[in-house]
């Protein structure tokens, strides 16, 4: 599903290149639950962002569902987003001015989903995450865990093939964190590919593959159950 060939990323500052990622070769299959681990500055988030097409790479090849992403223009990439990729951020990143319901609705609006269909999709999602009662609240009226729940729901609502989660539990207490991880595990079982970035060994263990990054290189990869 995802194939990275010799992907590299650097920031050029005058005459000095600062390398963030080097020689990344990685294949991720449909149904994988991949955890990316590594110390601060190892390039975890950057790798996730490149996979999510939120950031450009400096070199290498990236195939997403056999499409060469490195050759696509912005329009095409946005289309990929809309169709296949859901994001979950450490800081939730819900839109403060919109209610829970409207936050869930926004991706569908951008995807130009018809009103009736939109309504039923949102209703399903509210149901599934058990947040029907909260649908008219604004993000700042929710706890962190609830906000992240909404963020996951928002990522899922477009029915993505893959969810990219950047330290999804980083701002949550352990109980809330565990709930979110269970939720992701469940989604993975239902067929969604998941890639998460995490510091936490325990959280990483929810995945079936763990990729360790250090100084921009893939240091090692472990396979789990």
């Amino acid at each position, binding site marked *: 599903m995802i194939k990275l060939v010799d992907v590299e990323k650097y920031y050029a500052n005058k005459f000095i290149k600062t390398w963030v990622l080097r020689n990344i070769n990685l294949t991720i299959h449909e149904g994988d639950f991949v955890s990316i681990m590594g110390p601060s500055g190892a390039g975890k988030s950057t790798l996730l*962002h490149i996979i*999510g097409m*939120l*950031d450009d790479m400096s070199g290498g090849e990236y195939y997403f569902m056999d499409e060469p992403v490195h050759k696509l223009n*912005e*329009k095409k990439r*946005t289309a990929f*987003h*809309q169709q296949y990729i*859901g*994001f979950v*951020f450490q*800081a939730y*990143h*819900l*839109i*403060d*001015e*919109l209610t829970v319901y*409207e936050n869930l*609705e*926004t*991706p569908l*609006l*951008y*995807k130009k989903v018809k009103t009736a269909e939109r309504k039923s999709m949102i209703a399903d999602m509210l149901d599934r995450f058990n947040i029907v009662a909260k649908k008219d609240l604004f993000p700042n009226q929710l706890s962190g865990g609830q906000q992240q729940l909404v963020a996951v729901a*928002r*990522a899922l609502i*477009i029915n993505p093939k893959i969810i990219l989660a950047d330290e999804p539990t980083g701002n949550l207490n352990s109980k809330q964190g565990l709930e979110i991880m269970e939720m992701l595990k469940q989604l993975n079982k239902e067929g969604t590919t998941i890639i998460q970035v995490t510091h936490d060994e325990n959280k990483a263990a929810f995945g079936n593959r763990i990729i360790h990054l250090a100084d921009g290189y893939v240091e090692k990869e472990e396979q789990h159950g």
Partner: protein
Amino acid sequence: MFFSYIKFAWRNFKKNKVYTFINIIGLVIGMVCSILISLWIADEWNYDRFHVNRQNIYRILVDTESANSVTKSSTTPNTLGPVLAANYNDITAMTRYVGGFSGWLIRYEDKSFTNDRWAAADPAFFQIFSFPFIVGNPATALQDQQSVVITDKMAQKYFGDNTALGKVIKKDNSDLYVTGVIHIPENSHIQFDYLFPIENMRRWFYQDLESWDVGIFRTYIQVRAGFPGAEVEKKIASIIPEHNPQMKAQLSLQPLIDIHLRTTFPDQCNYQQGNITYVYILSLVALCVLLVACINFMNLSTSRSSIRVKEIGVRKAIGARRWELIGQLLGESVMYALISMILAILIIKLILPVFTTFIGKNLEFLSFSNFKMLFWLTALTFVVGIFAGSYPAFVLSSFTPINTLKAGLVHNVPSHARIRNILVVIQFFTASVFIIGSLVFYQQLYYMQHTDKGYDKDNIVYFYGYGKYMTDYNSAREALLQNPNIESISKAFPPFYPGEEESSDIMWPGKNIDKEFVIYHKIVDFDYLQTFGISMTAGRFFNSEMSTDLDNYVLNETAIKEMGLQEPLGKTITYKGRTGQIIGVMKDFHHTSFHSAISPFIFEMYNGPCYICVKMKPDNILQTLAFIEGKWLEFVPDRPFSYMFFKDAVDNYYHNEQRSMVFARGFTGLAIFISCLGLLGLCSFMVEQRSKEIGIRKVLGASVPGLFYLLSRDFISWVVLANLLAWPVAWYAMHHWLQNFAYRITLNLWLFILAGIITVFIALAMIGLQVLRAAMANPVESLRYE
């Protein structure tokens, strides 16, 4: 989608009330100003454009060349019009016209009026001009010599709600039959209350309508549709010397629609002449105020980008395309513009009555039948919204999402500082040009109003001397002088400029007869000098003791200089065939506005009817006026008393300048205000952006004044730069404007420096508070994040 945007924008507005308020206030002010100015400009621009044949109507101008000047005038020899119409096929119709003067006694039944303005014209007048007829037939209205066409206002005044058609009004002992009632729009350069056929001018004004020597009329022609006026002009240009070899004059054609704004000489049309320069200046002002308001909006919006970027980033991450974001942001600014427009319309509705009284014009604004105006207002809303929103929209939507989502750190946002600085420079550039402009304006106006004009204009009333003033002037004068509050009484014709007769019929020993010399003529009497406080430079003024003074002349200094007379006193000159001695030289006074240089003048005495000028003591003016009116009832029982203050007439020379001055002052203030709002927004952004730097510097031991200097240095240097750029532009513009005046101030450097100081001071005041707050804040606050 659309509704979700509106909902979102609305919540955003409510959430950031102060920001929204500042933004909207700026736009509202910009809109109100530009709409008000546009209304004024549209009104000026539309002068005389209601005439159906406007494209084919021309007024004939006469350019008289003489030794001392080239004089342009719109009065033509009396018979010019008919001769032109008879000899040139391209001219399809012609009318002569004179009018706009009041003072004639008109009676209807037992009522009498003197303040209606009369006019006379040829029968084709209503064929050429399409003044709307309320009743009557334009084709025949002026056919009969005893017919009169009156305006709706006059009909209402004379006949009330009764039908006016066929009613008889009396001018002296002649009957005039009302053959039509018309409406004269306010923006017509032809203004009168009643109009009668020109033939009557023979008996009422002693005019020889076939004369090439005398001219009191304006001549309008209508040429064949689509026929170029320049062709006609070429054909008729030198027709005057053919018929009157004495007169060295060329004809030219002035398109009807140019008369109001592009007439460069004092037109003596008895209506408020316009000036295209002020239309241009104010258009520019309107545009600038709007531009400044838009820039303000841009500045505030982009400076808030640190708050918006997170949202934009999230939207991008969940699938928004760039153009959708641009659409959303532009939509928001259009919404701002729309709210501002609605507020602006309400405000204009409220202040329009004050505004119209102030500028002395009746402006119409937004009746719902006026689709054109609705269209323009809507267009303006969108243009402002899209223009003001464009820059923020493109900036915000261009951020790479990932840079915006890293824990919402402000310093990751591209600051676009350069563009915002340019915007600040533009704002202060405009403000500075405005300030300099209005300072120069004000100085020149002050100079014109307070420089000694060589005569006294205060506490003088004038009126036309009818009745006993005509038959026995001396005893009427004595009776008035009984009142101790009346200082002096004099005859004068005309009492003030314009109206002076100009003539080249003057001879003196040593005159170069190959060159024409034009001199202005004023009728005065003994007390003229005293009444108007004018002094002599040589010789003496007319004296009541000297009966021969009726034959003598007094000239002004300019006349003596231009005539080249070395020892003028006692010299014999011949003016209009009458020979007399020069007994005195009058000190020059500014007989007209400072726009024109002082002209040569000749003064003579005259025993006939004239304007009476009464100089009063400054105290008890009202009682004195009541006294004069009481005497009037005694002396002139058949006419109501109507008078004018001399000062009003003189001040009216500067009507355009005074009005523009108030405009300019108001809009300068507003431009500065809006610029301040912009600076406020920018400054708070900068402080927010640099709070970490400020914190670190404080920890390292920077003092508050040091920080203040550090933070305000950039802004102040931008403001100074804006000033430096503004100076040459303002200098050029104001230098150009001052060329309108024969007597003018010189542009002083200190004026420019003053403008600079004002703007820097304002900028410091605006940014000072915020910078101080930032500089004095506890550094721990800003550094806690790291």
